[in-house]
């Protein structure tokens, strides 16, 4: 099941798709998109979904020596309703996966997913019965930063690449839709 703009029911993007395709790459709309992209990339509100040891490295990334505040992404919002960058940090087990999917679905668009660490990118060293082998089996991921844990410089490299991605986004990309994995309803 792929994430696709066509799957969405409502046309609640910033610019109506029909207008976009009718004007087809007009200069005004691309400039508006650039301004919006510039504003979004320098003001990420993080949701650090931390489960394991990569969280220690995330703390040092947010600390004063390697400062994530330089990129405007200082304030973690521990409510998904107020956040737009979901940073998944640490091993995700099969029991934790519905929770992660629910948090992603609760975030408002536009939202991006940052896979921090080897366990999140591909399961890492835990190739076993209990670990999700990569977050991209349940969520759409925008940036993958491998490492166990990744050096803070690598994290910032990934963040800068994410900023480039956000800058060059078209507004017709949103809304992107729900995560492909939906948590099951609990049997009563």
């Amino acid at each position: 099941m792929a994430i696709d703009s066509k799957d969405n029911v409502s046309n609640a993007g910033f610019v109506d798709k029909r207008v976009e395709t009718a004007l087809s790459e007009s200069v005004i709309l691309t400039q508006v998109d650039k301004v919006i992209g510039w504003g979004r990339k320098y003001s990420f509100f993080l949701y650090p979904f931390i489960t394991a040891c990569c969280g220690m490295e995330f703390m040092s990334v947010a600390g004063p020596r390697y400062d994530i505040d330089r990129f405007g992404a200082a304030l973690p919002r521990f409510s998904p309703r107020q956040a737009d960058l979901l940073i998944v940090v640490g091993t995700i087990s099969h029991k934790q996966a519905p929770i992660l999917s629910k948090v992603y679905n609760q975030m408002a668009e536009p939202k991006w997913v940052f896979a921090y660490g080897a366990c999140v990118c591909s399961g890492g060293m835990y190739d076993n019965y209990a670990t999700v082998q990569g977050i991209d089996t349940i969520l759409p991921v925008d940036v993958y930063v491998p490492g166990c844990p990744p050096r803070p410089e690598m994290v910032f490299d990934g963040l800068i690449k994410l900023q480039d991605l956000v800058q060059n986004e078209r507004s017709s990309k949103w809304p992107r839709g729900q995560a492909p994995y939906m948590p099951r309803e609990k049997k009563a």
Partner: protein
Amino acid sequence: MANIIQIVKDRFGDLVLDSHSQHGDDTVIVNKNSILEIMQWLRDNEATNFNFLMDLTAVDYLGKGKDMRFEVVYHLYSLENNIRLRVKAGVTEEDATINSLAPLWKGADWYEREVYDLYGILFIGHPNMKRILLYEGFEGHPLRKDYPIDKRQPLIGPDN
């Protein structure tokens, strides 16, 4: 303090199948049908007074030539007397059940759920016998020796 193994053997006689003291750890191997009676006596009488159940786990002896496939292992400790005892009870594969110790020690509750989750041994009389570490739709019991190491579960994750 008299030898703890001798005390248990004097009281229970032929219910104690075997015993040893390797590396200084006193161990008795008992029949699983009398486990509740033995544990109750060990906890309540004044000579031994084992009021602390330190650990409850299981071992899978598949392929090692033993007649009972599983063995449930209990570690007991007495806070007043400072003595330790290990009690082992063999469990066969066909009848993988044993009495639950949750009525005696509250700590046995989660240990027994973990043993059920990972080995598949049912505990009769347990108040809440369900999986504790793995998710509800998980198929199989992973710490058994015949669980394939690369088996993928149906919920999520790339297919094998």
